[in-house]
C-alpha cells in the first residue's frame, strides 16, 4: 500500500455512525446466538450389558419428532472399527454428526497402517472429550451415548456411558434415557456382584428382550423394532429388525377403550 492510500480515511467520519444502513439493522447488536437449546428429532433409550464372552447393546429404530413417531428405520447403533459399537440416543442430527466424527477418527487411525486399532476405551475417551468441549461452549451435542466393545489385547468386555454434559461412567450394565429408570434395574439384577462374568449369551439376550419389552410397554416414545449387537473376541454380530412379543388384550377390559356397548 502506498503512503497516499494510507491517508484515505483521515478526516473522514466513521461510516457506521454517520451513514447508518437504511434497513434499521443495529450495528452494535449482540451477535446472533446459535447453539443447541433443545433436541428436535430424537432417539430414545439405548441399553447395554456385559456378559461372559463379551457385551451386548440394543437400541430401537425410532426417531421421534416430539410426540410424533416419525422415522421407523433409524439405525442408532454405529459400528466403529471391528471391536466397538456406539449406541446413541437424543438428537438425531447431532448423532449423525457424531457418526461422521467417529468415521473420520477411524479412517485417520487406519491410515497409519501400523497394525494398531482404536479400542472401545479410546473411542469412549474421545467421545467424552468431544461432548465436554461442546458443553464448555454451552452448545452441546444433545445426546447420551453408550460405547460397547471388547477392549485391549485381552478383549475385556467394556461398556461405558457419555452424555451431553461430558458425564461419563462405566459399569457392567448401562442405559440411557428412559431406560435408566425402567431397564437398568432389570439389567443390574443379572449383572450385579460379578454375576455378568458367568452370564451366558442366551440369558443376556433374554435380559435385553425383557428390557425392550418393558420399554415398549411403558416408554411413550418407543418402537417394537430394534437392533441388537453382540461384540465378542470374534467380532461383531449385528442383528437388525428384532422385536419382542407383547400382550395388549387387557386393553379390551379398560373402560373407554374401543366402542362402548350399552
Amino acid at each position, binding site marked *: 500500500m502506498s503512503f497516499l492510500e494510507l491517508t484515505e480515511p483521515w478526516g473522514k467520519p466513521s461510516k457506521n455512525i454517520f451513514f447508518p444502513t437504511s434497513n434499521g439493522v443495529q450495528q452494535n447488536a449482540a451477535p446472533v446466538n446459535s447453539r443447541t437449546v433443545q433436541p428436535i428429532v430424537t432417539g430414545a433409550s439405548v441399553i447395554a450389558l456385559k456378559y461372559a464372552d463379551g457385551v451386548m447393546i440394543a437400541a430401537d429404530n425410532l426417531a421421534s419428532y416430539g410426540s410424533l413417531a416419525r422415522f421407523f428405520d433409524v439405525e442408532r447403533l454405529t459400528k466403529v472399527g471391528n471391536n466397538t459399537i456406539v449406541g446413541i440416543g437424543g438428537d438425531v442430527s447431532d448423532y449423525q454428526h457424531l457418526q*461422521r466424527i467417529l*468415521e*473420520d477418527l477411524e*479412517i*485417520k487411525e*487406519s*491410515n497409519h*497402517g501400523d497394525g494398531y486399532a482404536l479400542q472401545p476405551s479410546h473411542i469412549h475417551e474421545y467421545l467424552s472429550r468431544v461432548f465436554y468441549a461442546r458443553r464448555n461452549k454451552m452448545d452441546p451435542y444433545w445426546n447420551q451415548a453408550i460405547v460397547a466393545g471388547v477392549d485391549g489385547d485381552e478383549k475385556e468386555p467394556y461398556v461405558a456411558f457419555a452424555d451431553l454434559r461430558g458425564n461419563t461412567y462405566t459399569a457392567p450394565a448401562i442405559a440411557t434415557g428412559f431406560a435408566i429408570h425402567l431397564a437398568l434395574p432389570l439389567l443390574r439384577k443379572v449383572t450385579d456382584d460379578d454375576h455378568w462374568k458367568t452370564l451366558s449369551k442366551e440369558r443376556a439376550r433374554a435380559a435385553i428382550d425383557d428390557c425392550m419389552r418393558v420399554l415398549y410397554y411403558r416408554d411413550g416414545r418407543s418402537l417394537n423394532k430394534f437392533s441388537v449387537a453382540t461384540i465378542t473376541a470374534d467380532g461383531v454380530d449385528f442383528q437388525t429388525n428384532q422385536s419382542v412379543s407383547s400382550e395388549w388384550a387387557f386393553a379390551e377390559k379398560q373402560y373407554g377403550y374401543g366402542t362402548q356397548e350399552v
Partner: protein
Amino acid sequence: MSSIGTGYDLGLFFSPDGRLFQAEYAYKAVENGSTCIGIKCKDGVILALEKVVTSKLLKPRANPRIGSVGRHVGIATTGFIPDGMHILKRARDEANAWRDNYGSAIPGSVMADRIGNYVQLFTCYSSVRPFGVMSFVAAYDDQGPHLYMIEPNGVYWGYNGISAGKGRQIARNELEKLDFSTLKMKDAVKEAARVIYATHDEEHNKDHEIEMTWVGEETNGIHTAVPDELLQEAEAYARRTVEGGEDEDVPMNE
C-alpha cells in the same frame, strides 16, 4: 548437462527454446529412486516398491513407504522421499475434505486430479521447487480399479501398468507382456514380484526389501499390505522364474 540450461535453469521460467529446466531436472531425482511399479488388473490394483536396505541396523518391514489415503486409495512415491511423504499428506487432506463435503469416498480420478494440480502448482513459481517424485495412485471405488501416475511437472495419466525409478525400463518391458484384461489380483502380486526381481542389477547386489500393497475385490475395497504368506509365495515364484531363465513369463501353477 550443466552447460545446457545455463542461465535459464536457476528458476522456474522458460528458456529460449521453451523448456522449464527445473521441471525437467526434477525427473532426474526420480530416475535414481527405488523401482516402483503399479499393476491394474481386472479386479484391483497392486503397488510394489523395491527398497534397497541401506543398513543392517534398519528393522525389516518397519518403514513402510506406501501410504493409505481414506480406506480405498493407496499412494506410492519414488524419488525424493520427503517430497513423497508431503504428497501423501496432501492426498489425505484432499480425501478428508471430500468426505467432509460430500459424505463419500473420493473417486480415484478425482484423487489423481487433485494431486496433479497440486504438483503442477509448484512448477509455476521460482520461490518454490517442483516435487522430485513420481506418485502412483491406486484406487478402488464404485467405478472399479484405477491406477494413475503423476509426474513431477503435474501431468498424469491412467495406466494398466506403469513403472518409475531405477529399473523402470526393464520393468516396462516386462509389464508390456502382461494381459491386464484377464489378470486377477493374486496373480498380479506374483507378476509384480517377478517384474521387480527382473530389474535387479546383479553387480550391485545389495539387500533389498519388496513392499507391496493392494486394493480391490480381494481386500473388500480396502487398501492394505499384501499378506506375508502371499508375498513370500510371490517372491519365491519371482526368484524361480527370473533365476531359472529369462523366457519364462508363464505364471506358475499353484
